[in-house]
């Protein structure tokens, strides 16, 4: 072998190398990683400890009102619940489909579910898969409903609380909610009715935006 190889022409050398690499490939295994991952437990624990893994519903509301487009909002609940109500601009990604859903590693992802458990679990899965900027919505949709859609003002509120509530009222109305001061519902609808889907006046919130980037040649 040692004596023959240098004597071959360049083409034959390249062909021989290709042949050897091809032959090795038969035994080298599957190039796809599949759904198994490795994770750095210490790094994740540190992030959780620093609370750098979530955003509050106020922050998210602010982003949507400012029409920020540098993040993707993912709704992890079932399709039926999604169709009843979802935060404007959210995309439906049931937890079981998370592994196949087309997401980029460099996108900012905000996850939410009903409470916080499913989004926390999905957060862990995505972080383990190497997604760097994943956040969960603090308290999930429950907290969104309480703080954004139906903010309350206690009767014995301090002036600071009242001022904050006044600000929140505008935000709430933007999302079609109804603020409640002193236990009394301000708006006409006395019942807590979840706003209709087409409610966010002002935002162009295309639901479940299917704008996949076209790639390839």
């Amino acid at each position, binding site marked *: 072998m040692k004596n023959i190889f240098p004597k071959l022409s360049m*083409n034959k050398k*390249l*062909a021989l190398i*290709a*042949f050897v*690499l*091809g*032959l090795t*490939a*038969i*035994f*080298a*295994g*599957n*190039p*796809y*990683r599949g759904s198994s991952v490795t994770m750095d437990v210490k790094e994740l624990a540190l992030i959780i400890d620093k609370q750098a893994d979530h955003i509050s519903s106020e922050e998210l509301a602010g982003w949507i009102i400012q029409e920020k487009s540098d993040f993707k909002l993912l709704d992890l609940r079932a399709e039926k619940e999604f169709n009843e109500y979802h935060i404007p601009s959210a995309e439906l990604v049931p937890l079981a489909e998370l592994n196949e859903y087309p997401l*980029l*590693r*460099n996108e900012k992802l905000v996850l939410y579910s009903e409470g916080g458990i499913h989004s926390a679990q999905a957060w862990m899965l995505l972080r383990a898969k*190497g997604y*760097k900027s994943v956040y969960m919505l603090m308290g999930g949709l429950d907290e969104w409903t309480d703080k954004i859609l139906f903010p309350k003002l206690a009767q014995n509120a301090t002036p600071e609380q009242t001022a904050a509530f006044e600000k929140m009222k505008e935000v709430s109305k933007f999302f079609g909610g109804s603020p409640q001061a002193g236990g009394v519902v301000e708006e006409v609808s006395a019942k807590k009715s979840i706003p209709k889907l087409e409610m966010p006046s002002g935002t162009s919130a295309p639901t479940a935006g299917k704008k996949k980037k076209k*790639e*390839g040649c």
Partner: protein
Amino acid sequence: MNAPFFKYGLFGDDVSLVVAFVIGIGFGFFLERGGFGNGRKLAAQFYFNDLTVFKVMFTAIITAMVGIYYLSVIGWMDLSLVYLNPTYIVPQTVGGLLLGFGFVIGGYCPGTSCVSAVTGKIDGMVYLLGIVVGIFIFGEIFPLISTFYTSTPMGQITLSQLFNIPYGILVFAVVMMAIGGFAAAEWAEKKLGNKIVEP
């Protein structure tokens, strides 16, 4: 750092355009240096006079395939993040035949026509103009042919999934096809390629 770099966030949209520009210029440069800016040389492969194009393209395919395969196996690259064009078998066969006819008649494929045009060849410029007109016509009649365009969808499928054989064996099979193809090409050039068609 893991590949693909863009999807792992090594650089953003802006820098990706610069990267694409550099790669594109490099691609064009090496096409030109390989003689691919010349319509005669390109068309010669269809008369078996000169199968350089076939050999270069097949070399590129197996180099990329072996490289991607081994980078993924050792974990330096996440193959699931590499975009796959979805397959629509009938419309893509028709499209492939159209491109092939155009290649034989015009002497260029889209990439090489750009190379030829920028090196000052008139046939390349005409070919490029033809591409632009073709794109325009395609865009205008697209509503009429969109049903056909999206017919027989097979999704983002690979040969390995289609035939249900392991990727490694497929890599080996394609390498063997290439080596066989190179040998056959050399033989054909000697045996069949001496009919002079060039003016």
